[in-house]
Every structure is written in structure tokens, then in C-alpha cells.
């Protein structure tokens, strides 16, 4: 088996541009999904009952449907259904954010419900409003427990951006495939891709593991 | 009544946990059919000595001999030794996924290779002995602490050990249930079992033990019959330890 990395050396700029898109898409997705997911999560926990039902439906639906399906539907079917036609990058951003926001909402719910109910009773007994209760008592305690899960959101997002290749988003996976096809050197290109993704993801995963260990220290009551 | 032959000898036993000296040159002998109670402040080495006896901890110095033969260090040899000793833990450690009967059968079936029928017969007899025959089909979660500990004693006895090691058997029990466990232990003693008991139950030690061994900071500071230790200790530190517990000497 002969190894020839010259195509990689020639096209490193091409690969790099793909990597830039991967990182950009990942960061924007994390930002949007955190925003949307937090809003949905808090609304689901503390909002009026009529809002809870559709929100739970949205969250559970995203748990049921694969990312690939949401991506493909957003890019190909949405324009037909609503006339709204998004370019690949923005379709991917919308689809990924929508999908991952559901996870964020679940993390919020788990974090909030992990705070002992007695805390809520005590705060309300003191005369605090609901908003004060959430802001000063619940969230500070919940955030610590939620931190590790939030860390894994970043990791999941970066991995999911690779799926966006199927709707021709010019991210790293997509550019790797193109290069592999043109150069007939799939092994070299994909091994490099594995190395690149690993280098990016490993520190994040390690960091999250360490966070989990620190937080487990706080434990339950 | 008591055999003169020592079944266990401890010679200058030393054990470290990192920099902490848990056992600092402990020497003593245990004869067959003897009931020994180890008492002393927390961290004085009593439990550590017990766990060295059945190889759950390894020694850093000195020697422990069972029937004159030093304890082996290889896993196979250690397993053979453990079959001759039974251990009862402070936290009972019943297997929660098995019924009381299945717990008691665990040793005979898995280690001794008895048929299920023979193991079951043996187990039922032992549950009967500790007064829990009617709880044979119950899971540990549905048993009180005292009941769990009695099942644990039956489980250890099912291996027909020569020596029974008790590591603070009643420390985790409610006061109401301590008595039922101590009664079982008293009965075992009367039947002639060789027992080494780490305990804070001074009344039990006074009534049942043949010899009481007082530990402090990894060393034995005094040992002797209960009458001596509780009524007329020879060593001042023994007296102050017992006073501290409210036991005037």
C-alpha cells in the first residue's frame, strides 16, 4: 500500500477553508441552540401549561428524528413547502440549531429539577417572586450541575456539522470528500480528517470528563 | 474447654497507607474456640488487622500465620485461606440482586461447587439458626438492618469457616436491632467458634469475650480477660479510653 500525501500538500488551503466553515458553523450553532434551547427549557419548566404541551412535543420530536433527516428536509423540502429557500450553510445552521436546542432544553430541565423542591418552598416562603426564585436560587445551583452537559453540546455540534456535507455545505468533511474523489487518495485524506477532528474534539471531551468528575463531587443531597 | 493450639499468630505486623502507619508492629495469638474482642479509638488499626487476616489488605512487614503456615500472597492461595475464614462487614454487604436464601447459598455454590440442592439445604438450616427461615425468599431491600446482618452471618457460616471475623458488625444498626445480632454472635461463641470481633459494644465484649485487646495508634497497648480490661486496667491509656466512653474503671 503506497502512501502519497502530495494531493493534501497541494490542496491544504482547500482543506483549511473547509475547516474554517466547520468551526464557524459549529460556533454559530452552539450560540443559536443555547439561546433557543434555554428559552424553550425555561418556558417548559416555568411557562404556562398551554405552552408546555407544544414545547414538549418539539423537544421529544427532535429526540426521535435523526439530524440527517432534519438537515435534508430543511434544505430540500422547506423551500417547496414555504417558499423559503435557504443556502446550504444557513439551512444547516437552522436545522442543527433546531435539533440541538432540544438537547439544551432537556439539559435545562434536568438541571432545574435536580435542585431540591425544598429550596423553592423556602424561597417562596421568604416572599420571593418566581423570577427571583429562578434567577437567584434555582439557576445558580442548577448551572453547576449542567456545565458538563453543556460541554458535550459543543462536542456533539462539531460532530454533527460533518453531516452537513450531504447538503453540500463546504465544511471540512465535504472538502475532504471532494479531495478524496479528485485525488483518488481516500486513505490519506480521510486519515488526515480523522486526525484533524480528533485533535479538535479530544480536548473538549477530556475537559467535559474532568468537569463531570468535579461535579460528581458535589453529588446528591 | 479452650484449645491451647494457636490457630492464628500475628508477629510484628506492619501496614502503611501512604504515609499513615495503620499497624505498627502488632503481635498476638488467637487460640481455637477463643473469642477475642478488639477495641480502641477509631483509626487505631483494629479493622485493618482484621482485613489483613483474610488478605483484603496486604502486609508491609511482619507475618500472619494460620495453623503455623504463613498467609500466602498469591491470589489462589489467598482464596483457599479465605474459605477457612468468614467475614461479616459493618455495612452487611448482602448482594442486593439475590434473595436472602440465594445470598447464603452464594459461597457454597460458587466457591465450593456444591449442588444447588445441597447448598439450599445448608442455607435453610443456617437461616433457621439465625432465626430468619421465614425470610428466605425476601430481598435485602425488604429486610431491616438487623435482619440483613443476621443473613450476612449465615452467609459467612455457610462456608463452614474455622474462624469468624466481625468488623464492627453492629455499628450501622439501630439500637433496637443490635440485640438480635449480638444474640446470634453470643450463640456462636457458646458453640465454640473462634471469633475475632472489632466492636464498640463494650457490654458484649465484657460478657462474651475470653480476651479483650486494646488498640491505640496501630499498636496493642493492653490485652487480657474482660475483668482486667474493664475493671482493673493495667495501662492508663486503657483507662482513659474507657472513661471517655463512659465506662468507669
Amino acid at each position, binding site marked *: *500500500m503506497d502512501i502519497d500525501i502530495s494531493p493534501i500538500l497541494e490542496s491544504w488551503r482547500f482543506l483549511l477553508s473547509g475547516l474554517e466553515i466547520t468551526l464557524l458553523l459549529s460556533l454559530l450553532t452552539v450560540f443559536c441552540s443555547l439561546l433557543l434551547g434555554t428559552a424553550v427549557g425555561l418556558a417548559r419548566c416555568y411557562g404556562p401549561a398551554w405552552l408546555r404541551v407544544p414545547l414538549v412535543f418539539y423537544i*421529544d*420530536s427532535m*429526540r*426521535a*428524528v*435523526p*439530524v*440527517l*433527516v*432534519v438537515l*435534508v*428536509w430543511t434544505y*430540500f*423540502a422547506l423551500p*417547496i*413547502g414555504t417558499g423559503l429557500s435557504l443556502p446550504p450553510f444557513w439551512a444547516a445552521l437552522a436545522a442543527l440549531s433546531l435539533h440541538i436546542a432540544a438537547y439544551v432544553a432537556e439539559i435545562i430541565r434536568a438541571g432545574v429539577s435536580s435542585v431540591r423542591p425544598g429550596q423553592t418552598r423556602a424561597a417562596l416562603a421568604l416572599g420571593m417572586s418566581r423570577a427571583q426564585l429562578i434567577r437567584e436560587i434555582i439557576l445558580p445551583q442548577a448551572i453547576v450541575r449542567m456545565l458538563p452537559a453543556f460541554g458535550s453540546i459543543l462536542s456533539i455540534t*462539531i*460532530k454533527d*456539522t*460533518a453531516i452537513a456535507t*450531504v447538503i453540500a455545505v463546504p465544511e471540512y*468533511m465535504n472538502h*475532504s470528500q471532494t479531495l*478524496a474523489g479528485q485525488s483518488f487518495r*481516500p*486513505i490519506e485524506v*480521510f*486519515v488526515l*480528517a*480523522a486526525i484533524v*477532528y*480528533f485533535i479538535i*474534539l479530544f480536548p473538549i*471531551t477530556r475537559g467535559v470528563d474532568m468537569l463531570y468528575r468535579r461535579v460528581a463531587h458535589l453529588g*446528591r443531597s | 474447654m479452650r484449645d491451647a493450639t494457636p490457630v492464628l499468630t500475628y508477629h510484628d505486623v506492619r501496614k502503611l497507607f501512604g504515609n499513615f502507619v495503620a499497624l505498627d508492629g502488632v503481635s498476638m495469638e488467637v487460640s481455637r474456640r477463643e473469642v477475642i474482642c478488639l477495641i480502641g479509638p477509631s483509626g487505631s488499626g483494629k479493622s485493618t488487622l482484621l482485613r489483613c487476616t*483474610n488478605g*483484603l489488605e496486604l502486609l508491609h512487614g511482619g507475618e500472619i500465620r494460620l495453623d503455623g503456615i504463613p498467609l500466602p500472597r498469591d*491470589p489462589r492461595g489467598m*482464596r*483457599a485461606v*479465605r*474459605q477457612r*475464614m468468614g*467475614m461479616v*462487614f459493618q*455495612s452487611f*454487604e*448482602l*448482594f*442486593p*440482586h439475590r434473595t436472602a436464601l440465594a445470598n447464603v447459598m*452464594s*459461597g457454597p455454590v*460458587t*466457591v465450593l461447587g456444591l449442588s444447588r440442592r445441597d447448598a439450599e439445604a445448608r442455607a435453610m438450616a443456617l437461616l433457621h439458626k439465625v432465626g430468619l427461615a421465614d425470610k428466605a425468599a425476601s430481598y435485602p431491600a425488604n429486610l431491616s438492618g438487623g435482619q440483613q446482618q443476621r443473613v*450476612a452471618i449465615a*452467609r*459467612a457460616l455457610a*462456608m463452614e469457616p474455622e474462624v469468624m471475623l466481625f468488623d464492627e458488625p453492629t455499628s450501622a444498626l439501630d439500637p433496637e436491632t443490635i440485640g438480635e445480632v449480638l444474640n446470634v454472635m453470643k450463640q456462636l461463641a457458646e458453640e465454640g467458634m473462634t471469633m475475632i470481633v472489632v466492636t464498640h459494644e463494650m457490654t458484649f465484649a465484657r460478657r462474651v469475650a475470653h480476651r479483650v485487646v486494646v488498640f491505640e495508634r496501630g499498636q496493642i497497648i493492653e490485652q487480657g480477660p474482660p475483668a482486667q480490661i474493664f475493671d482493673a486496667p493495667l495501662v492508663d491509656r486503657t483507662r482513659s479510653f474507657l472513661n471517655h466512653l463512659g465506662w468507669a474503671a
Partner: protein
Amino acid sequence: MKLDWSVVTAHAGDLAQGTALTVLMAVLTMALAVPGGIILALLRLSGSRVLSGLSASFTDLFRNLPLILVIYAAYYILPLALDLQFSPFTTGLIALALNVSAYNSETFRAGIASIRRGQGEAALALGMSRWQAMREVILPQATRRVLPVLASTWVSLFKDTSLVSVISVGELAYTAMRIRSQTFRVLEMLTAMAAIYWALGYPQAKLVDWLNRKYGITE
């Protein structure tokens, strides 16, 4: 613009076949990845530095690669590296099994480690060997603990089978998109695809919730 939903019913048979292949893929993957995960966890917890390190490296590798990359890489590299021609189904299965084994290994490792030390000691004190203690006392209890996590992993796996469509495995996603290409009924087919995944996945997600409530840590 006019929608024609009859295209979905016309191809119901194909879609059913695709669904069956999705289920088969998921079941076979788990059948490989559960024992795989247990073996990796036991290696990780073994005393041997070499075995433990190898297991940890395997797990670290596959937890930190996008699954779609593993699938493509398996598709291109396996034939060249092993000089064997696998079917796309087998290739997809291998990629999925490697990926899920890595996650399961962490799940089992954490589950085993969460069993109190005293349980192992009680087993050893009875004279059991380390392997007997693991088999009779530790693993049965750990299995109870890991059940909710495994269920969660299953639901993720079920969704991830859609990714093997990129190497032309005829599961649900591939089938639906093929029919879309052939009939040009994009919205209908893609919506049907989403709806079928939803119909299968929603109850599974609810089952996971129920399992979490039932077997959640009750120390």
C-alpha cells in the same frame, strides 16, 4: 404547487423494507456493541497497563470522531487495507459497531465503578476469585445501573443508522431519498421519511424516559 401524497402509499412496500433494514441494522449493531462494550470496560478496569491503555485509546478515538467520517473511512479504507470486499451493509455495521462499542465501554465502566467496593470485598471474603466476583456480584448489579443509559444509546443508534445511507445501504433514509429522486416528489417523500422516523422514535424516547424513572439511581 400541487402535492401528491399517493406517491407515499404507492411505495409503502419499499419504505417498509427500508424500515426493516433500519431496525435490523440497529439490532445487529447493539448485538455486537453490548458485548464489545463490556469487554472494553473489563479491559479498561483490568490491572494490566497495556490492556487498559489500549481499551482507553480505542474508546477515546471513536468518541472523538464524527460517525459519518468513520462510515466513509470504513467504506474506502477497509477494502484497501484488508483486501476484502464487504457489502455496504457490513461496512456500515462495522462502523456503527465500533462507534457504539466505544460509548458502551464508558457506560459499563462507569456502571461497574459505581458498585460499592464492599460488594466486591464481601464476594472475595467468601473465597470467590476476582472473575467470580465480577460475574456473580458486580456485573449483575452494574447491568441494572446501565440499563437506562443503554436505552438512551439505543435511541441514538436508531437515529444514527440513517447515516449509513451515504454509502448506499438500503435503509429507510436511503430508500426514501431514492424514491424522491425517482419521482421528484421531494416534499412528500422527505416529510414521509421524517414522519416514519418520528413514529418509530417518539415511543422509544418515551420508553427511555420511563426506564430512567424506574431504574434511575435509587441509592
